[in-house]
């Protein structure tokens, strides 16, 4: 790890100014920054520690939603009673992410800022070509070992999978990322790689995530996050889905549904097509299968990752079944 200058931000404004300086990076939990610095991907000249800032780690519930401070730890949000009661997909996404130690370190804001990355991105010595690290240098993953690479949202520049779990739940539940004065819809905060895979977030130099806002909804109250992976715990998603559903008074007709995918796309992947085909319909195995097939519209396979197509369709179907009312076939 290359050495750097270290300083502590005295205030949010101080952190904003420091973050705008060339070569400066913010340090919150540090779990991804130090990891990437050790493998030679990140080389900050100055590390600006924001963990001592006060008042940014609160979880404030109100009748229309919840505001989660950017420095709240993943573990604190996962176990918050209001989050578990009103936004269960958020809690489930968090406690299934990383490990208990990492969840005690990593912050909510930092979690959203983690890089979309693959094994080739993390190894600059063996694989100099990476359009994320060095724009225009090419992509070592395309034509390589791609079992874990994305099938949705890819470009000729990058096929790395967004690793987020929390982000998938936030995109499904129409959360907003609060950047001080400015707010960005979670779905718009994460960018497609296109021809500029080095730019992953809709955040400008000098901006800093201060909070996340999740609006309350019946679909959020009846939500879940289903994560399937190569080992049972402490692993990235092979495929995952955040699903929230609200039913009409008859208990079987879908009034509102939100579906987003993880582990298969270059960003947290909202699937409006799945939602549209189910909205207003009675839930049935046939309707679920028909809808789940739409989850992978537009998918492009690269080498070894064909399994993600059928896998994520089944994960969507299973997540919907997990949240259906009792007594429905």
């Amino acid at each position, binding site marked *: *790890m*290359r*050495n*750097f*200058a*270290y300083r502590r931000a005295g205030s949010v404004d101080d952190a904003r100014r420091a973050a705008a300086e060339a070569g400066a990076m913010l*340090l919150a939990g*540090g*779990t991804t920054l*130090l*990891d990437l*610095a*050790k*493998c030679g991907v990140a080389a900050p*000249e*100055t*590390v600006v*520690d924001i*963990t*001592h800032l006060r008042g940014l780690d609160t979880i404030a519930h109100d009748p229309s939603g919840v505001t989660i401070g950017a420095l709240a730890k993943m*573990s604190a949000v996962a176990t918050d009673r209001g989050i578990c009661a009103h936004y269960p997909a958020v809690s489930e996404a968090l406690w299934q992410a*990383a*490990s*208990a*130690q*990492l969840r*005690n*370190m990593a912050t909510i804001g930092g979690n959203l800022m983690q890089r979309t990355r693959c094994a080739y991105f993390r190894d600059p010595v063996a694989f100099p070509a990476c359009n994320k690290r060095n724009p225009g240098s090419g992509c070592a993953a395309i034509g390589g070992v791609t079992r874990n690479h994305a099938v949705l949202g890819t470009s000729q520049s990058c096929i790395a999978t967004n690793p987020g779990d929390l982000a998938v739940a936030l995109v499904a539940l129409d959360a907003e990322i609060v950047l001080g004065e400015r707010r960005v819809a979670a779905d718009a905060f994460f960018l497609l790689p296109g021809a500029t895979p080095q730019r992953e977030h809709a955040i400008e130099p000098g901006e800093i995530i201060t909070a996340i806002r999740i609006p309350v909804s019946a679909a959020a109250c009846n939500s879940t996050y289903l994560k399937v992976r190569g080992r*049972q*715990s*402490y692993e990235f998603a092979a495929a995952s889905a955040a699903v929230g559903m609200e039913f009409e008074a008859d208990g079987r007709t879908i009034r509102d549904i939100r579906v987003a995918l993880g582990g298969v796309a270059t960003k947290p992947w909202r699937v409006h097509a799945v939602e549209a085909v189910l909205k207003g319909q009675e839930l049935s195995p046939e309707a679920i299968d028909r809808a789940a097939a739409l989850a992978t519209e537009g998918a492009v396979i690269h080498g070894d990752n064909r399994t993600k197509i059928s896998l994520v369709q089944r994960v969507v179907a299973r997540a919907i079944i997990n949240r259906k009312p009792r007594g429905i076939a």
Partner: protein
Amino acid sequence: MPNAAISLRLQINGHLHDLTVEPRVTLLDALREQFGLTGTKKGCDQGQCGACTVHVDGQRVLACLTLAAQVEGRTVTTIEGLGEEALHPVQAAFLEHDAFQCGYCTPGQIMSAVACIREGHAGTDDEIREYMSGNLCRCGAYPNIVAAIRQAAEASR
């Protein structure tokens, strides 16, 4: 010199220590190289194995992904500070159940287990496995590790 060494005062196992280090020095390297507290192990050094687990303000964290500078003003506890008079009940349970083979991961396992029990995440074997998944044991002593944690958790109720 923007990257010059910085002076820190850290509280480790109840004692205050002054040190001067480069900003990039991790808590793990400071513990082992500056203070001789080699109980905290360096396994993967990239947050994947849990061998470097310590407690900061009572919460289990990874010392390899924590800068020494980050913990100034906080309380650090390592395996050496866990049971200074007698063995901690979790240490005793690991001995009783032979919950190790080579022992390299054991300090991290024990620090993680103490926190796991305190968090209330040691209710069933499945829960223990889920909430201890950040601590790898390449010898595969997992059945005995789970048994030790389960016994220590039951004894603490």
